[in-house]
């Protein structure tokens, strides 16, 4: 039996939508998830991979809040790789390739098992507005659903247009209709909107690939899971193939550039620099003779293969020609051609830190609609919006995500203070607190806080609490044990023999001393679970830097606590230049900290804002 009044209505069943609906429901809100086709909930529009550098951090954070993505992806994982395994833990990113079908089915099963979450099939055509607030949605057939607030997670569907070479047609992605009526409704809010584009490669029939001739890339021997709750893969593991583009392929592409949707001037939107089409690669890096292409099977029960690295909007027959010129692909059959998609996004500078539209109370936006790209970015935003909307409906305020404690905070802050000029993707280099915001400690950073606001369930809380106890016991033991320097030199440490003995924690901060090495030196340490020991080692590596990062974080927190009212009249601040005033009026930063990150902000201008904020607070 469907209700007709909800706390939160989520529009869209993509990666943002499912997390938004699930987190709100976990917090005790009554939720409806409305999406065009229930059968596409959990669909992956593009690459069947989850995680990676920066992205893996986001998944871990979603997981730390007891979100779905990590667990569902682990269940569907058919190849696990920890990227940057040989580099420092702060920049390691867990990534996996998922079986599309398992992922989708698991995701749908998870959602169905959530209490107080209704799944509604239908297209949202309009929004209900009452007393200056969004209070519900109207479906295509006229049915109305009311709610305390509404979260839009419509991805690439707003006025989506697909391009195959010179051919174009409206669509949200291959096989789905665009969302045009809702886009028209969005226009009425007077928001700044823009156009972005992205592309996807052709899908190949794996039975027609000559795998024998190709190099193969296996997964890791000791797979690292995305979720803190899992320890081993469920699905059978597979290897990927690797091939390369070559001079002949490049020639074909170059000769046909004018027929590419991207190059013929048909697309006005901006595409991501880090996910260029093969046309882009050939033009911009003309001196490169070859580009790597990973052939990634899309699942265990399908023959479809995703050729990672050659997204394109060339006409189908050209795609056929250049793909077949590559090693191992001479006979390949294209199952579905590559295409580009162009869509509307909302300038995220119109959002609050909770991803609510400042000028349209009750309406939250999450996912690709905010100018981001990627499943993980979408899922993380879903958590932010879902959490805030549920809290608002239940009558409390959830603490904001900060740059100094999460990648989620970095992303939200980047989006709302800088906006986007190309589809926004997470990188570890975006996080200035990278050394402390690691994938390995996402739970230590976020789970307690999540428990407090009610989004972390009992099972996870118990596992987390036990882990924290073991970590604490391990740290105490290691801070009390002492090792003479001679012993540490014996295991390869580069130390001055004159120095006094080191505690276990100090010893672990040396690059040469792993936990296993120490445990061999001191058998009493074998009481400590090796995984706990390894985690303490990760913390120790960065101990020398954490103080400084801590200080910086405090500065940020201080600047962030200096609030600037939303309706502040910048014209009344004496000494503020007209240029800065214009920028501040446009961004309406909520705090001095946010203002500091506005491009072109000057030290002197900040000083004026600090004074203003102090005056207002007094």
């Amino acid at each position, binding site marked *: 039996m469907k209700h007709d009044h909800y706390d939160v209505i989520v529009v869209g069943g993509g990666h943002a939508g499912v997390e938004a609906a699930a987190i709100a429901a976990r917090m005790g809100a009554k939720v409806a998830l409305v999406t065009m086709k229930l059968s596409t909930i959990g669909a992956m529009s593009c*690459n069947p991979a989850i995680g*990676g*550098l*920066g992205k893996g951090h986001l998944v871990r954070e979603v997981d730390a809040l007891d979100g779905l993505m990590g667990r569902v992806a682990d269940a569907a994982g058919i190849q696990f790789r920890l*990227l*940057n395994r*040989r*580099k*420092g833990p*702060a*920049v390691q990113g867990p*990534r996996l390739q998922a079986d599309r079908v398992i992922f989708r089915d698991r995701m749908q099963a998870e959602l169905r098992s959530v209490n107080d979450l209704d799944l509604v099939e239908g297209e949202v055509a309009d929004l209900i507005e009452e007393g200056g607030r969004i209070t519900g949605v109207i479906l295509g057939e006229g049915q109305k659903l009311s709610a305390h607030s509404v979260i839009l997670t419509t991805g690439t569907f707003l006025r989506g247009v697909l391009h195959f070479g010179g051919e174009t047609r409206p669509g949200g992605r291959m096989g789905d209709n665009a969302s045009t009526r809702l886009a028209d409704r969005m226009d009425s809010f007077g928001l700044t909107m823009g156009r972005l584009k992205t592309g996807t490669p052709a899908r190949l029939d794996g039975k027609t690939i000559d795998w024998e001739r190709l190099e193969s890339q296996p997964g890791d021997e000791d797979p690292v899971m995305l979720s803190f709750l899992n320890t081993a893969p469920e699905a059978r593991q597979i290897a990927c193939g690797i091939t390369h583009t070559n001079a002949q392929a490049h020639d074909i592409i170059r000769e046909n550039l004018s027929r590419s949707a991207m190059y013929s001037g048909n697309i006005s939107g901006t595409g*991501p*620099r*880090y*996910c*260029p089409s093969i046309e882009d*690669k050939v033009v*911009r*890096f003309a001196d*490169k003779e070859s*580009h*790597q*292409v*990973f052939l990634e099977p899309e699942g265990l029960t399908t023959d479809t293969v995703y050729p*990672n*690295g050659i*997204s394109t909007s060339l006409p189908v027959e050209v795609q056929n020609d250049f793909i077949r010129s590559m090693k191992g692909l001479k006979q390949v059959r294209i199952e579905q051609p590559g295409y580009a998609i162009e869509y509307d996004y909302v300038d995220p500078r119109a959002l609050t830190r909770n991803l609510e539209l400042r000028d349209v109370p009750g309406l939250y936006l999450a996912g690709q609609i905010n100018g981001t790209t990627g499943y993980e970015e979408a899922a993380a935003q879903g958590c932010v919006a879902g959490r805030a909307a549920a809290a608002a409906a239940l009558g409390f305020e959830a603490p904001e995500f900060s740059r100094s404690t999460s990648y989620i905070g970095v992303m939200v802050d980047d989006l709302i203070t*800088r906006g986007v000029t190309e589809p926004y993707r997470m*990188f*570890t*280099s*975006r996080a*200035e607190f*990278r*050394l402390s915001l690691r994938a390995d400690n996402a739970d230590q950073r976020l789970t307690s806080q999540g428990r407090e606001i009610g989004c972390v369930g009992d099972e996870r809380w118990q596992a987390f609490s036990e882990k924290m106890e073991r970590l604490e016991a391990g740290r105490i033991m290691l801070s009390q044990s002492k090792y003479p320097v001679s012993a540490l030199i014996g295991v390869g440490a580069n130390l001055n023999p004159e120095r006094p003995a080191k505690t276990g924690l100090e010893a672990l901060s040396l*690059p040469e001393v792993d936990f296993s090495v120490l445990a061999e030196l001191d058998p009493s340490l074998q009481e400590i679970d090796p995984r706990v020991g390894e985690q303490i080692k990760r913390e120790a590596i*960065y101990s020398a*830097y954490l103080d*400084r990062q801590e200080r910086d974080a405090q500065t940020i927190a201080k600047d962030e606590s200096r609030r600037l009212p939303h309706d502040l009249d910048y*014209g009344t601040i*004496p*000494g*503020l*230049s*007209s*240029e*800065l*005033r214009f920028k501040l009026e446009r961004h309406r930063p909520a705090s001095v900290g946010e203002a500091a990150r506005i*491009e*072109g902000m*000057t*030290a*002197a*201008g900040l000083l*004026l804002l600090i004074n203003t904020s102090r005056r207002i607070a007094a």
Partner: protein
Amino acid sequence: METIYALATARGRAGVAIIRISGPAAHAAGEAMAGELPRHGRGLRRLRDAQGDLLDEALVLTFDERRSFTGEAVVELHLHGSRAVISAVLDRLGDLPDLRPAEAGEFTRRALENGRLDLSQVEGLADLIDAETEAQRRQAMRTMSGALGQRAEVWKRDLLRAMALLEAVIDFADEDVPVDVTPEVEMLLDRSADAMRREMDGVAAAERIRDGFEVAIIGAPNMGKSTLLNHLAGRDAAIISDVPGTTRDVIEVRMDLRGLPVTLLDTAGLRESVDQVEAIGIGRARERAAAADIRLHLVSPEDFDTALAGPDDLVRVARSDLHDADPRGISGLTGQGVPDLLDELADRLEARSASAGVAIRERHRVALREGLAHIARCRELLPSGGIAHDLAAEELRLAVRALDSLVGRVDVEHILGEIFSSFCIGK
């Protein structure tokens, strides 16, 4: 935003006095007094008061936001420099709506806020206004024209490129990026560190140019030190000021030596003293002399070869008038040897000031030193291979931040921009 005005030239009688008005109401204020403003930015106008009575005939200059010193609309009134005219015009401006007198330094502050000057340029400007000698003026001009900012930009470009290389290997590990970026990173780090170190080493000289070199005249009592000092103070050199010694033991005379500011110290008689108070004074004088840039030892002829002089010190036979005009001598009475002495001093000080760059303050030196320390640490971490790239990148970030404290700020978009324009990233 308020419009401010102030007299930009020194108060008092002068040929020309300039009143500057800056802010959105500047042009309106100009029109209220001068009628229509000159169309091409400058022209002669009659300034009138509210009753239409003539105040002065003035050269009126107008600037729009993009071309003015403050980055705002500016009007300048070049008046006849009489006190009466100035105060009449200032009164009139005070009566106009939306105008108020500027606070001290407010024009410069607005230039800073509007991004017309960076912090180091403001410091240069302050020095320029204070400049008394030619070398000070040149140094301040270089800094004010943004030379430090430009150099920092160059170092930063190298560091950002190095950072982009490291970040590329970190964030795009699964892509086609160069595998070993270390050699290029090392080259970039060394290049910027060398330049920064040179600049840092020059701060001491630059500070001397700003604050003055010190030359201490030392010798036993009755060696004619004071006579020589009086001679130098009275003639031969342009005296800027007589600063009476703050202690009764050191007398200072400021002079301009080939454009370099020099303070001569007369360290009243170095001798063993039984008087405790005097002994303390002498101790202080010794310290002061030891810290001076150059010491001039005045000695008797028999002590000439055994004087305890450092490599940078000068030794002269004192009171040469008593010693048959000894060629090694100097006399404050006859002036013998004085031109030579001044030449030699000036040569030496010029050689020392040659190392001065555009970093001129202790603040600059501290920022450079901090930046260099982080670069050095980064350099140590590099050979570990990828393992410590995250730490190396952190050190670089801190190095760049240190440079930023000299001028502006960087952000991650610059680094990503560098990455994207250099490598083919993306699958």
